[in-house]
């Protein structure tokens, strides 16, 4: 038995001691885990970060907010400047300067003995790094979308399951009251039988043309940033704006499907399946380096007959968010704690004891930490995240091929279309390969 897994057992024991028998649903108050006062370092969850960009830093601060429960001890990024800035933040909180830094995730994973890792990196890296982290039996808080391609996603899901790690997707909307409430009302039939769902995601962004080739900024390991993606010279588009380029992301569509499509699935019990037919059209930029669709309109059908339309918000009557349409009314949820319904009375309904109670979390980060201790499944586990993004990725394939795609959600295969099937994956540039699970 490795040192790490015995440490995990210790953490679990500590959690059970304070919470007694764990019943679903459960919320463990942070104070009960914190044992009051300053927690000895040995009982804190030791965490590392891969990807200290804007999302990584934001997530890290959210974990730091949970005082005394987490200690960040190691950071990894391909951009030395960002790494230094992140280390300064960590060292200040830790009141020490021993936070270790790495430029290569392989070394990070090899050397560090951690409980959990927070990963916030561009999508084209997800397949390799998520799988490698799971293989190291680290619990992972990983950003959505969990994969750039469906083939990557299948491997990640397998790696998470086989290694028995706790996985939390950064689809934090699940831990927000309005989304939970909307989904719970819908799944308990308060708008009747759901027939149609509309999911509004952001419109695309304005183009920037093609900036000239320029010198790679000091400290940025461009070759490593590209990793498995095709080699291109540096043109100043890297952090954040990678998401408008198809080699790294699918644009707003894939950036956001992990949120509002996930919520749509949550409210209709479609979390562990996928659509059977997918059609879509996209409008792609006509010029310039950004090539992800700026508008997209995808319609898919599930085996139970539910039709889901996913489009950029300006194309939809209710704009952003998830709208479930049932035969008795509709419910619309969106960010900013928004929830509305065809009849306001629907929103006042109570959910009876014997009805379906969806997993409740009021703090996405706390939920992850709790689950790391208790070894219970987190609120945003891997497979629903994979199913949400694969719906969008199938839409991307429909838009690329100009064809209606038939999908077998059980076998996870495209039916009868070898050309479209090739788009389920993106070959990796040598020497990169997906790790074996």
């Amino acid at each position, binding site marked *: 038995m490795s040192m790490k897994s015995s440490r995990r057992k210790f953490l679990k024991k500590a959690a059970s001691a304070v919470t007694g028998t764990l019943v679903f649903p459960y919320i463990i108050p942070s104070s009960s885990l914190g044992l009051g006062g300053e927690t000895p370092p040995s009982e804190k969850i030791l965490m590392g970060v891969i990807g200290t960009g804007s999302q990584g830093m934001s997530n890290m601060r959210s974990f730091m907010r949970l005082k005394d429960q987490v200690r960040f001890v190691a950071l990894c990024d391909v951009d030395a400047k960002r790494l230094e800035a992140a280390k300064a933040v960590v060292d200040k909180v830790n009141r020490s300067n021993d936070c270790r830094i790495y430029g290569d995730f392989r070394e990070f994973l090899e050397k560090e003995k951690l409980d959990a890792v927070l990963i916030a990196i561009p999508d084209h890296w997800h397949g390799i790094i998520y799988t490698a982290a799971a293989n190291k039996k680290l619990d992972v808080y990983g950003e959505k979308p969990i994969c750039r391609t469906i083939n990557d996603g299948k491997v990640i899901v397998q790696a998470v399951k086989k290694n028995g790690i706790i996985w939390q997707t950064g689809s934090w909307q699940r831990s927000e009251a309005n989304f939970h409430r909307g989904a719970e009302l819908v799944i308990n039939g308060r708008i009747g039988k759901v027939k149609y769902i509309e999911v509004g995601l952001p419109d695309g962004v304005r183009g920037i043309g093609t900036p000239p080739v320029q010198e790679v900024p000091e400290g940025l390991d461009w070759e490593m940033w590209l990793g498995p993606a095709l080699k291109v010279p540096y043109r100043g588009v890297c952090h954040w704006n990678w998401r408008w380029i198809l080699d790294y992301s699918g644009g707003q569509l894939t950036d956001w499907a992990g949120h509002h499509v996930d919520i749509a699935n949550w409210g209709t019990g479609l979390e562990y399946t996928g659509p059977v037919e997918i059609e879509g059209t996209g409008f792609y930029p006509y010029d*310039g380096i950004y090539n992800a669709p*700026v508008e997209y309109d995808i319609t898919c059908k599930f085996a139970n007959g539910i039709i889901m339309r996913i489009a950029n918000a300006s194309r939809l009557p209710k704009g952003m968010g998830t709208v479930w349409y049932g035969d008795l009314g509709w419910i619309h949820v969106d960010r900013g704690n928004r929830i509305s319904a065809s009849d306001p009375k629907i929103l006042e309904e109570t959910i009876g004891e014997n009805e379906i109670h969806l997993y409740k979390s009021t703090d996405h980060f706390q939920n992850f930490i709790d689950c790391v201790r208790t070894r219970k499944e987190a609120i945003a586990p891997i497979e629903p995240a994979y199913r949400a993004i694969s719906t969008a990725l199938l839409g991307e394939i429909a838009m690329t091929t100009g064809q209606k795609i038939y999908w077998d959600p059980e076998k996870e295969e495209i039916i009868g279309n070898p050309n479209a099937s090739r788009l389920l994956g*993106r070959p990796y540039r*040598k020497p990169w390969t997906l790790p074996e699970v």
Partner: protein
Amino acid sequence: MKRVLNILLIISIILLIFTDCKKSPHYRALIITGQNSTDWVASTPVLKQILEKTGIFECSILISPTPGGEWDKFRPAWDKYNLVVLNYNGEKWPETIRNGFISYVNNGGGVLVYHSASIAFPDWKEYNEICGISGWDNRSEKDGPYIYFRGNRMVLDSSAGPAGWHGEPREFEVRIRNTEHPVTRGLPVRWMHAKDLLYARLRGPAKNMEVLATAYCDTTGGGTGRDEPVMMAITYGKGRVFHTTLGFPGDGTSPALQCAGFITTLQRGAEWAASGKVTQPVPRDFPTVSGVVLRTEMKPITLKEEIENLAKYEIGMSTRYYTGLQDRIKKAAGDPDKLLEIEKMMVKLLENDKATIESKKLVLRELSWMGTDYCIPTIKKLQENAELKDEVDFALERLGVK
């Protein structure tokens, strides 16, 4: 032998005539102009060209007398036309002309109100109803409410104030407000329009009027900070009116008139006004929010030309021939013969020593998913080319070649 050649020549001429006939115009349009606060001499031939490019319009131009001129000779033959394009604001027409126009519209004639034409005839009630909204020439609350959008809703604002305002020409984003109308169906809902004058503070009777698109007028220089209507569909009697405020002509070379979005919506609006339907497909160069698309020449190009142009591609140049190729592939979906025809041309590009490395990279990406066995030998040969190594590996792996 000479006889055979002659016969062949005759046959080919006949074929040529027939293929030409296939596109013969369905609708006759009359552009009325001659007095305008914008340069009608410059804009009129452009409007004619844009409408005739559709292949379904044949346009005549009717020029009014100069101010104070002899109106007796100005006699539009209303009944001959399916569409009247208004590019006029000036002296008030004589009563007979006015009555003729109203009965033309009442009886189902189509009207296209272009840019500054709506400003005409402030005291002619029916004309203002046909235009829906307008500005300038002492129009005010007496002429109807201000029309603009707040969020997703059209606002009819009856507050007092003058009508008509514009700032300096600039690029702005057009937002489609009705995605189901024949004119706007299938278009991107947000797109960048080339440098143009954006009309604001328009007001009018707005009867039977639907706003199809708006544009945000920022507050620079006293702008309204509102989403101002830029395209309207109006019904009047049995007639249909398409009103666009876009298209400031300048001296006729204004980017507004070259904008693929302006051209397309004008063409679609004209067809709808003339017939009630739109048969024109959305062109593949229709702009999106990503940026303005200028159409300096509007000729559709062949696959061969597309490949030839793509072969010159270097990074930083327009990617239009690549996106064009991608669109061709999408359109050919499910037709293996057509796809193979495209694939063969793509392979020719790969084999062409003069084609740029960058163009080959793009072609390899496409072939990686839609290629057949046909392309594989050529791609394998490219393995020796160090500059293409990654893309060749990418393509071969996806194509399932070990």
